């Protein structure tokens, strides 16, 4: 039997990124995945309708181009089709269009308010400045401010120097931006409800917070820092669905000599004398390796896979209190034709991108109040798109795949578990909202897959269905993510690492946690990652 240097638990995108880098650095890596497929929350599959669904994640922008190049993903079949446009339908039958092109976008704002169009200039400039500061931090391990190791001190100084490049006003503005709510932040620029609602949605996607909660302005950046083909802030569809990202990662990994075993759920991480020794599969089979990397979230890893006796109590305590809190659901819908949105002009390219129905910040916030009370939003925020307009590989001719991301959707309903009837009622809430803007929509549905946090947890293994493997609030970012003192991808058990979105810099199909984790593991092995090119500043 082949001896493995590293076992990687979970074949999500971050796990496959870590595996890819380690394999290419010359280690012998085995990926074990509980499902019959790899891909985690970025999987494309047909569930019997003939139409391919992107199971959870549905668009691509944050995925780091450095990783695409290092792991040669285009060679292994990854192609990103950038899309353009989007619309927020308003209740009065109008819509706010969005365009990639700054000037077109500005002109559309001017249709609602000349002042807002003007303000969009300074808004775009200010947000870009924040992105420029944050973005380089994504591809670096977060320094521990109290370790006093030379490396941490040097890294802190590096960040302080970057911060020091700001003028005093910019520093003050940066601190404000980091701690404000997206609603308050937008209030400073804009006056039109629908414009604020359109911009606010980036502050709440995947987050168990409302747009009026402090700290949501920062979440905005997670949706602005992306790039497609060097085009900053662009969004794209992965050709073939989001599974194309993970399939390319898997192909790149196996081409480099790595091994993937599917249908191989891990029951326990084995330790001996306080060191990692390998894993036991659910079948009882033991696989040994001196290093184990978990792509599972921090709770699943340390509360389910590791013997609590191997972990210090304060660490366990913090893991137990790590905030996961699923806040989103998803509807994957197969359609037998393009739905009609009478508000949009015939053939509008706005239908190619994100479409929303929430035209005020207050409606979004009220949706959050429902979540706090343990209910799904009666008037949910839906991020809806139909990628098959640009990517015909996902559906037979004439048919379409519609992805509906739904916020807010709690992991438990008023304290009890979801039932199938609840799930159906949840789906009906969403479908009826869409049908209000698209007559005949219901008749076009030929198949539907409804995912609540319950399904996300069961299938992908995301605790409480949290798509970011943990809330993106300040107490869980940077050196606090996931556990203060263990924010550098290592765990209290030598040889056991974590590489998922529970770690810095957090969620989204970004790959940065996976790459940073690989760098730390190689550092421990005193190996130099030949293939790891330095991260670049794009802005």
């Amino acid at each position: 039997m082949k001896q493995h240097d590293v076992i990687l638990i979970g074949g999500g995108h971050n796990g496959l990124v870590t595996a890819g880098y380690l394999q290419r650095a010359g280690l012998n890596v085995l990926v074990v995945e509980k499902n019959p497929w790899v891909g985690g929350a970025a999987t494309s599959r047909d569930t019997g309708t003939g139409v391919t669904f992107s199971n959870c994640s549905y668009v691509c922008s944050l995925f780091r181009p450095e990783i695409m190049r290092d792991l040669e993903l285009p060679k292994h079949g990854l192609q990103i089709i950038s899309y353009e446009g989007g619309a927020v339908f308003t209740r009065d039958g109008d819509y706010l269009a969005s365009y990639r092109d700054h000037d077109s976008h500005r002109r559309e704002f001017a249709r609602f308010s000349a002042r807002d169009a003007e303000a969009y200039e300074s808004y775009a400039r200010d947000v870009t400045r924040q992105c420029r500061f944050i973005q380089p931090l994504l591809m670096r391990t977060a320094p521990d401010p109290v370790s006093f190791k030379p490396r941490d001190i040097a890294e802190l100084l590096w960040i302080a120097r970057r911060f020091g490049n700001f003028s005093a006003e910019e520093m003050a503005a940066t601190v404000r931006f980091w701690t404000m709510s997206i609603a308050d932040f937008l209030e400073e620029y804009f006056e039109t409800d629908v414009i604020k609602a359109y911009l606010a949605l980036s502050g709440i996607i995947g987050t168990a917070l409302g747009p009026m909660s402090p700290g949501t302005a920062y979440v905005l950046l997670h949706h602005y820092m992306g790039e497609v083909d060097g085009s900053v802030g662009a969004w794209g569809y992965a050709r073939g669905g989001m599974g194309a990202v993970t399939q390319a990662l898997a192909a790149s990994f196996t081409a480099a000599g790595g091994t993937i075993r599917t249908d191989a759920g891990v029951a326990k991480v084995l330790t001996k004398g306080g060191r990692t020794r390998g894993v036991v599969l659910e079948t009882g089979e033991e696989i040994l390796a001196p290093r184990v990397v978990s792509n599972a979230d921090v709770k699943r890893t340390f509360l389910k896979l590791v013997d609590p006796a191997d972990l210090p109590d304060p660490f366990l305590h913090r893991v137990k209190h790590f905030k996961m809190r699923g806040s989103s659901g998803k509807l994957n819908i197969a359609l037998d034709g393009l739905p009609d949105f009478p508000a949009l002009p015939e053939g509008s390219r706005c239908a190619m991108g994100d479409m929303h129905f929430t035209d005020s910040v207050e409606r979004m916030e009220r949706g959050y109040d429902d979540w706090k009370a343990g209910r799904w939003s009666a008037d949910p925020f839906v991020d809806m798109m139909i990628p098959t307009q640009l990517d015909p590989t996902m559906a037979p001719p004439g048919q379409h795949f519609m992805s509906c991301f739904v916020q807010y959707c709690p992991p438990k309903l008023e304290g009890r578990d979801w039932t199938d009837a609840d799930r159906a009622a949840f789906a009906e809430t969403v479908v009826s909202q869409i049908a209000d803007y698209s007559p005949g929509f219901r008749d076009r549905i030929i198949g539907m897959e409804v995912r609540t946090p319950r399904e996300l947890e069961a299938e992908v293994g995301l605790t409480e269905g949290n798509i970011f493997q943990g809330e993106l609030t300040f107490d869980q970012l940077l050196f606090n993510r996931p556990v203060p003192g263990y924010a550098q991808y290592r765990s209290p058990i030598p040889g056991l690492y974590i590489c998922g979105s529970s770690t810095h810099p957090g969620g989204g199909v970004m790959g940065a946690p996976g790459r940073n984790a690989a760098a730390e593991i190689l550092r421990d092995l005193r190996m130099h990652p030949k293939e790891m090119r330095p991260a670049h500043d794009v802005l």
Partner: protein
Amino acid sequence: MTSCDAIVIGGGHNGLTAATVLAKAGRRVMLFEAGALGGTMATVEVAPGYRSSALSHLVNRLAPEVVAATGLEMTCLAAPPAPTVVLGDGDPVILRGGYGARLEGVGAEEALAFASLRAKLMGQAAILGRMLGHRPPMPGDFGLGDAWHLGLTGLAVLRKGRAEARDLMRMILTNVADVADEYLTDDRLKGLLSFDATLGAHLGPRSPGSLLGLHYRLTGSAGGVAGGQIVPRGGMGTLAAAFVSAAERAGVELRPGTRVARIEAVQGRATAVTLAGGEVVSAPVIVSAIHPGTTFLRLVDPAEIDTGLTRAFRRHRSKGNVAKLNLALNHIPAFGGLAEADLAGRIVIARSTDHVESAFNPAKYGAFSPDPAIEVVLPSLGQPEMAAKGCTLSALIQFAPYDLKEGWAGGAPRLLDTVLDILDRHAPGLRAGVIAADLLPPTEIEARCGLPGGHWHHGEMTPDQLLFNRPVHAAAGYATPLDGLFLASAGSHPGGGISGLPGLNAARHVLEVAR
């Protein structure tokens, strides 16, 4: 034209503190106050023979350095810390000593859990409290003094050990609800922490950053007890009188009933004030201890400040969320069936975190809570001179937003009715014993105290409006873009509450830069 060395605008506790400190340093100081001296600290008559504290009703953060610097007479505060009673469902919990050093009404295990949380928060507050007594560090203008203070703070953090240092950095911007859930099981205690953390703020206990409100409360002390609170004898007006007499002793020329109409400036330098009567008083130093928004948007000629600053003040978030209620009662209400001695401090009606959170929800949309959380103080208890027969009651009602959609003319009677119902539930018979009631929604607080927005902290105390961003970046650290004009109200660092620190810090800064 009259002239002096320094003009102070506003005779609240911060204005009086600043004026006293400047006068004691040998400056000739004139203080102008549009209304009566004392600001939010006043004793009012609710009905003939029934006296209560007008707005603020407790002392829990008057800074010892302010007392020392002004020579404040403290006889009205000579009392042991008053208890806090929490009324939820069922029996009350009583916190005694400094913020529950001793607990009654919970099991031994819960008391232990509370003690460990209390110790953690008090320890963190002690560290954060080190930031309050001096000018905040200003980016771009980071001096040796700042390095010294920050260094000392850093040392204090490290002395507590690495684990505590990490906890502080994790908890500093977290929300109170999660921290309460992590340590406690008792809903009443969680409700109290949630209430105290959000009182006066536009935040719910689940809003990120809400724990900071609780930290801020715990940085205060009363009678030398950290986290303590005292109901002043004779109401808050007695404390106001003490501030006034300290100013008089220091030689401040006090001019109550004198409104400042304009701050005159020439070529970027404030030179004088014009009073409403037309009189002009000049001074090289003008300290404004009224709301910073009023100072810049109403008193200074817009031509003298740049549009960026005007815009910053328009964005400044300073709308109150609390209504004040004063009642005259024909009897002493038996809240929670408790004895009078237990009711001598404050009584907090907060059932749970969820209660406070759902009370917050309507405030986001311009409605008051149908089921608000309430803090009650009985100012006349044990003081027959405050109410010969019966009792006066002073309550803070959370949440009652300034911008009420239905308008406060119609809203105030409905809120009063709601509140009396709740109070009557916890002290049966209270409603029938009401002789007079005076409810002050934020709009009324604005009108009576000259506080725009009716926000008693003169601006939200969230991280985006703290330290070098308080009140706004360009006017933080007491100096302003207009030379010679300084800010000293609660709108400046470190913020609201009867501490006197903004006034003291501002005066010290003036003495440092304007010799």
